[in-house]
């Protein structure tokens, strides 16, 4: 069960202004990847690197030559055949507005249900939540009677997501769907997207410029980067990894990013109402976090950014840092001339910490050494957990 793509695209600059510039400004993009069709795959890359191009290729909106797209058992595109977009049910949420301006929000939502989905019920492995629920989740319930041109940018993004979900897609392709949303709405929506992907078994490709977002939500990662050889520069799909694995592997491209994070599986042990904290148990040790609106006993996945973890040789009681966990250094890797990343083992799990080379040298840290990992509770916002329960 996977989404397999292989392509080699050249977009020529032919159709543009003839007066200025040379003819070698074509855009090249090639790659091959196989993405598990479960969970959320984050797609990351700089602006103009080809993320939208990739999603359009998967959705079947552009027909490039020498391209192979297979989804599970179905062949969507190969040298002989090309399955048109409306038969793929790969709902794409565009970066720009694509809601129908002549219909109200409500009718936009009913649109795909009324015209599309009824014809292909056989693929509906899962029954997604109904319209009312989705509208509630995505905070658009009051917008239903409004005309599309009355919506703010963030509102139309949310409506687009719900509209796409109501079309009962086989896969959801999201092109920076939360770019125009405030942090608070973002968290809510990320959580619901994750929930939907998990509980209703709907695979998603999630394009974002924010690795924070991606590490919060994604299970897998697709990195697109630009490579220059001679005078043509070319986009390639550079890395593909399970995000959980990536977070434990200092050699993955992911660890080099400023947003590198570790994923910890913990259980909510107890709420400390007096201090507004939740106590999580992590193997033998405990962690304090700002109070979560989850029942005691719930298991969660906690994302801990490496840059928020510092290392201390001793267990000090004079620091405001609440979480001081005994850990063992497993691996050390230099990332730049200033930065090193350290992989720490805490019980059966791993934590990452980026510190300066200077500190590493000053503290004389070595693999195998027992240290204390310090995590500021405040640095872990209340929304930094990923899911309510595990697969």
């Amino acid at each position, binding site marked *: 069960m996977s989404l397999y793509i292989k392509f080699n695209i050249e977009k020529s600059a032919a159709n543009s202004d003839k007066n200025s510039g040379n003819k070698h400004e074509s855009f090249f993009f090639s790659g091959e990847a196989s993405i598990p069709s479960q969970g959320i795959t984050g797609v990351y890359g700089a602006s103009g690197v080809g993320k939208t191009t990739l999603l359009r290729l998967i*959705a*079947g*909106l552009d027909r490039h030559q020498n391209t192979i797209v297979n989804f599970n058992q179905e062949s969507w595109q190969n040298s002989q055949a090309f399955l*048109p*977009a*409306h*038969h*793929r*049910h*790969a*709902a*794409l949420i*565009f970066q*720009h*507005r*694509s809601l*129908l*301006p*002549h*219909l*109200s929000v409500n*009718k936009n939502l009913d*649109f*795909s249900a009324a*015209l*599309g*989905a009824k*014809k*292909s019920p056989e693929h509906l492995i899962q029954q997604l939540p109904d319209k009312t629920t989705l509208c509630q989740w995505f905070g658009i319930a009051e917008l239903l009677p409004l*005309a*599309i041109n009355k919506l703010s940018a963030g509102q139309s993004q949310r409506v687009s997501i719900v*509209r*796409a979900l109501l*079309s*009962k*897609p086989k896969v959801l*392709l999201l092109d920076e769907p939360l770019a125009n949303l405030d942090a608070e709405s973002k968290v809510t929506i990320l959580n619901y997207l994750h929930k939907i992907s998990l509980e209703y078994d709907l695979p998603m490709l999630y394009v974002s410029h924010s690795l924070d977002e991606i590490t919060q939500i994604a299970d897998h990662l697709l990195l697109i980067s630009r490579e220059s050889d001679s005078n043509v520069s070319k986009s390639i799909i550079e890395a593909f990894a399970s995000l959980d694995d990536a977070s434990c592997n200092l050699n993955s491209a992911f660890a080099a990013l400023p947003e590198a994070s570790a994923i910890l599986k913990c259980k909510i042990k107890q709420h400390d109402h007096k201090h507004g904290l939740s106590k999580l148990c992590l193997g033998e040790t405990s962690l304090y976090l700002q109070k979560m609106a989850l029942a005691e006993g719930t298991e969660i996945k906690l994302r801990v950014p490496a840059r928020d973890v510092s290392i201390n040789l001793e267990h000090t009681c004079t620091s405001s840092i609440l979480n001081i966990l005994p850990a063992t250094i497993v691996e050390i890797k230099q990332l730049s001339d200033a930065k090193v990343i350290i992989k720490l083992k805490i019980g059966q799990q791993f934590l990452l910490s980026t510190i300066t080379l200077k500190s590493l040298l000053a503290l004389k840290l070595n693999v195998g050494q027992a240290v204390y990992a310090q995590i500021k509770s405040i640095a872990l916002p209340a929304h930094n957990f990923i899911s309510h329960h595990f697969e």
Partner: protein
Amino acid sequence: MEDTTYFLLSLQNWQALWLSIKLASVSTFLLILLGTPLAWWLHNSKHKSTTVIEAIIALPLVLPPTVMGFYLLLAFAPDTWLGFSWLNLTGEPLAFSFSGLVLGSLIYSLPFVVQPLQTAFSGIDQHYLESASTLGISPRARFFSIVMPLSRYGFLTAATLGFAHTLGEFGIVLMIGGSIPGETLVSSIAIFQHVETLEYTEAHTLSAILIVGSFSMLLFIYGLNKKYRYRTL
């Protein structure tokens, strides 16, 4: 025969008026029915050969209508394939029949329908269609639920131009219709006859009724359009 007037007009003139409306309605209906897929196809096709078809569609306009009518009449004769097959199919000759009028109007008014539609189609943002297709909406459903409502102003223009032009069309109708009362004698011919025979009162009355009627209709349609232009359906 034309002595008795019923509400301003003689019976024959009422009949002519009715025929005009019938002809214009049927033609407009068929024009939209045929013109829409044609315009959509022309709009979407990137192939060069369609330019030829676009040009051919506009050609009937450049000939004087009576002459166009004469050429059509030649084509309608029972010894041409068109006239012959029509006679075989329907048992009626095409010339001097209502069907012939409709066919003539179709050919002559097609550019007034196809071109505004193409203009309207070219104003539609491709992303609406692409987005819908990824939601599983078939091309046909996309056309009906997106293209048509978004180009409704173009349809309105096409329909009004088509309708009004058929109402007023005279040269072709005179030629291929043969002014048979109750069958092909439409109001434009009736007005023409009245003017020619110096029956100015009748001519003016019929013109006035035609104008007032059309004006009210246009006012209604445009009013409706204006009302809904800035509004969600």
